[in-house]
């Protein structure tokens, strides 16, 4: 509701209330006036009746003509008064039975009295009517008495009504005054609530806004003018706050831009510096305007005077050798037409004749429609690295040549060595056989004639011959062990071990050896070579546990640092780790021959084979507690066990 409507409503209600109260008061006041008139009427009526009674007494005392006329005149006065005042008193008696009765009684008594008075005096002519006259006088006395009393009743009731009307008038006046005071209070309260309070709130809000509180909002729900004013105020604050925020944002943007420009300047300087140091220049080519932009370093790289500005596209060919330009131009054309980025090494020919190498890179930029609008890229000097590369290539070629040469020499030496070893072994075997054969023949043919010492010498010769034969076999084995092509085939080490151990057990049924072979041990390598490895290691384990009561041999595999290690462990004689290095040297033994016979060529052979496969072997032992040999056979990316499963040996 708007203030105007509310004000009209308040005015209307106030007026109605005031008019109602005023109407009540006027009604009460009118009632009081009416009762005042009634009182005045009864006063005059009472006065007239008293006059009548006085005249009547005068006549009764002196029944003569003049007093009679006075009575009659007074009757007329009284009758006239009653007739004249009848309409006035009618309003009073309308609702008052007693007053009406009294009024009608007075009216009736006046008439009756006048009639009685007219009948008076008959006894003067007829003495028999004396009693009648006496009774008439009694009636006149009583009637006049009654008239006075009835008028008194009227006056009494009029007085009562006057008091009531006065009280009512006072009450309504009080109500009127109280109503006016109440209306004033209500109007003040309404004024305060509807106008003063919102004005105060607006004032407070304005003061707070002036103090900088732009976040303040009145958010009034009123639907009057103050509500509209509050909403306009809030809208103004919204605009003001938005303006302030925009201004702050603008200031921040300006500051940021200044910082960015400074950083850009510094960055450009750094870039120039970096480009200069790196021999790297940048360029761009606006395909729509045809404008070329070069960084300083490009001018430097091309040996072009910066004052000339960037060279346009076709002219730039003069800075390259024809071969380089042909490749570079093709790459640039692809970038222009297909948007393909390119990186192209090209040889420069500078105006002063200096040559150099650069790597030119470029890429295309498209607009929103996908049209290629710009090419940009870099040109980096690579002359130094190009020269170094050429030099490295030359060195590599020399190195390869020398390696090939040395390899050939080595292969020749190896072949020679193998031939020598074979020859030695083969050639030595003939005299050895002779030596052994003749000593055998000597024993057989002349054994009876030889004394004990001679026989002992012959036995030692035979023994030495056998040993020498073994040594020659060992050398031959060693020399042959790594011969041939290294093919990598899946080899089932578990099956090998099981077979070897079973053979040993069959050969020496008296031995109580417990062995444990992990299943599925598989390696990729030369099958015969790896068999030699397993034969040597199993033989050693079997041999060095000969004196161990509860001999145990374990063949297993384990993974260490991502590498698969195969192991053969026993609890036999073991060895002193201090002599570990001698283990793998040919013909080196850590045990006496009579203790554990052998020539000391097995482990050397094993090491060579493992090394040939690119693997590693190691030994671990404790004297009296056993030894463990572990080796690796690099599988070149494939898990050997899976291959074994696929192709079980």
């Amino acid at each position: 509701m708007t203030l105007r409507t509310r004000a009209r409503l308040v005015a209307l209600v106030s007026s109605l209330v005031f008019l109602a109260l005023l109407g009540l008061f006027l009604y009460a006041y009118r009632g009081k006036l009416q009762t005042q008139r009634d009182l005045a009427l009864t006063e005059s009526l009472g006065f007239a009746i008293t006059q009548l009674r006085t005249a009547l007494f005068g006549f009764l005392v002196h029944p003569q003509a003049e007093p009679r006329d006075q009575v009659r005149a007074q009757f007329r006065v009284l009758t006239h008064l009653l007739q004249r005042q009848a309409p006035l008193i009618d309003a009073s008696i309308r609702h008052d039975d007693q007053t009406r009765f009294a009024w009608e009684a007075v009216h009736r008594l006046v008439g009756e009295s006048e009639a009685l008075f007219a009948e008076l005096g008959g006894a003067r002519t007829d003495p028999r009517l004396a009693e009648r006259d006496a009774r008439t006088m009694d009636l006149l006395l009583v009637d006049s008495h009654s008239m006075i009393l009835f008028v008194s009743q009227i006056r009494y009731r009029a007085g009562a009504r006057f008091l009531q009307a006065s009280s009512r008038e006072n009450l309504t006046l009080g109500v009127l005054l109280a109503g006016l005071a109440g209306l004033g209070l209500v109007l003040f309260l309404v004024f305060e609530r509807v106008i003063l309070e919102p004005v105060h709130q607006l004032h407070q809000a304005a003061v707070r806004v002036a103090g900088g509180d732009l976040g303040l909002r009145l958010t009034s729900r009123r639907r009057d003018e103050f509500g509209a004013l509050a909403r306009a105020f809030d809208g103004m604050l919204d605009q003001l706050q938005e303006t302030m925020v925009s201004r702050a944002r603008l200031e921040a943007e300006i500051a940021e831009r200044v910082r960015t420009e400074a950083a850009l300047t510094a960055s450009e300087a750094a870039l120039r510096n970096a480009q200069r140091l790196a021999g790297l220049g940048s360029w761009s080519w606006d395909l729509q305007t045809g404008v070329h932009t070069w960084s300083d370093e490009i001018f430097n790289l091309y040996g072009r005077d910066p004052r000339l500005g960037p060279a346009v596209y076709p002219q730039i060919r003069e800075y390259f050798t024809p071969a380089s330009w042909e490749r570079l131009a093709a790459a640039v054309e692809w970038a222009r037409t297909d948007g393909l980025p390119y990186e192209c090494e090209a040889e420069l020919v500078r105006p002063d004749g200096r040559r150099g190498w650069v790597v030119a890179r470029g890429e295309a930029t498209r607009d929103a429609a996908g049209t290629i609008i710009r090419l940009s890229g870099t040109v980096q000097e690579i002359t130094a690295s190009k020269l170094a590369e050429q030099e490295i290539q030359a060195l590599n070629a020399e190195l390869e040549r020398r390696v090939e040469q040395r390899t050939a020499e080595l292969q020749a030496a190896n072949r020679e060595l193998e031939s020598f070893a074979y020859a030695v072994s083969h050639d030595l075997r003939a005299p050895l056989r002779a030596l052994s054969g003749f000593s055998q023949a000597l024993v057989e043919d002349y054994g009876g004639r030889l004394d004990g010492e001679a026989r002992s010498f012959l036995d030692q010769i035979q023994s030495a011959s056998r040993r020498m034969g073994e040594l020659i076999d060992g050398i031959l084995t060693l020399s042959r062990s790594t011969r041939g092509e290294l093919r990598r085939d899946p080899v089932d080490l578990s099956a090998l071990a099981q077979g070897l151990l079973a053979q040993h057990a069959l050969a020496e049924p008296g031995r109580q050896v417990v062995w444990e072979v992990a299943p599925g041990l598989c390696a990729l390598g030369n099958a015969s070579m790896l068999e030699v490895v397993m034969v040597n290691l199993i033989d050693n384990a079997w041999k060095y546990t000969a004196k161990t009561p509860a001999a145990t041999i374990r063949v297993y595999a384990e993974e260490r640092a991502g590498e698969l290690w195969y192991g053969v462990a026993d609890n036999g004689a073991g060895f002193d780790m201090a002599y570990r290095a001698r283990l793998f040297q040919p013909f080196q033994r850590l045990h006496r021959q009579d203790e554990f016979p052998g020539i000391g060529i097995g482990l050397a052979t094993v090491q060579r084979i493992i090394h040939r496969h690119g693997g590693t072997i190691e030994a671990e032992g404790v004297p009296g507690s056993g030894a463990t040999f572990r080796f690796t056979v690099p599988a070149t990316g494939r898990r050997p066990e899976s291959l074994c499963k696929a192709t079980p040996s």
Partner: protein
Amino acid sequence: MTISRSILGVLAGVAAAALIAVMVTAWWQWGRAPPEPLVLAVARSTFGGPLWVAQRQGFLAAEGLTATLRPYPTGKLALEAMLRGEAEVATVAETPLVLSSLAGIPFSVIANYASSTEHSLVARADRGIAAVTDLRGHRVGVAPGTSGQYFLHVLLSDEGLTEADLTVVPLPAAEQAAALAAGQVDAVAAFAPYSSQCRLALGDNARSFSTGIRYTGYGSLVTRRDFPDRRPEATLRLLRAVNRTISWMRTHPDESLAVAAAGSGTQIATLRDGWGSLTPNLGLDQGFIVLLQAEARWAIAAQVAPGIAPGAALPDFRDFINAGPLAQLHPESVTIVGKP
């Protein structure tokens, strides 16, 4: 939820209304004194009418009276019944009171409640009675000791006659119409409904004569002398009830006539003649005293009753009036000169 709340609200409202009704009823009942029994001897005459109206319209009960109305043919008989103790209050005209006071019988008038000019003399025209003066030498019946007797005196004396100029035949009110019709008497001085019965009995042969304003009888409420002091509350309630009855009668004249006839067991036709001359008004005024004195002078002079000593002094009728209760209710209605 809403329905149950509204039901609860309605129930609470009904309960509150019932509680208020009970409290108001209790207050109303407790604020009222218990009803008082009252036996009234009421004449079947016009003067008895207002009491019958009061009873039939419930004004007596409304003021807390359990009233029993006993009808009597005339006020004189009602007064005698009251004095015998058959009733506590009697309605009666002034003449029996005057005669009783002269006989030294104590009583108290507590109020006049009506005045009437309805008395009339009904004469047989065939007996040559065309005017009051024609009564000379004729037989006129009248109920002795009633207001009819004094009315006859006023009627005669106003015309210069006396009771000696004719033959006054004592005739109970209830027998008057029959006696007149039978020609046992030539005229009857009576009041309604007996005067009306006489007119009806004679038909066109009837001639009526009235004193008009020259004789106005008063109907009074009379008790034993100790009654107002012994039963003050009943006295006040009776006066209040009669006052309410009078107010109602002033505004309902026709209805009140029917009610009075029904209450007294009288035909409306016989009561109607006097009803228009009846002026109900509760009061005790000096005119009543004047009338009593006039009638007492007549009674002494005419030796109307056997017990009246010749030349006896007039009694002070104010001793026979107890204006206290009425003055307590309506002081403006008590206008007797002298003793309050």
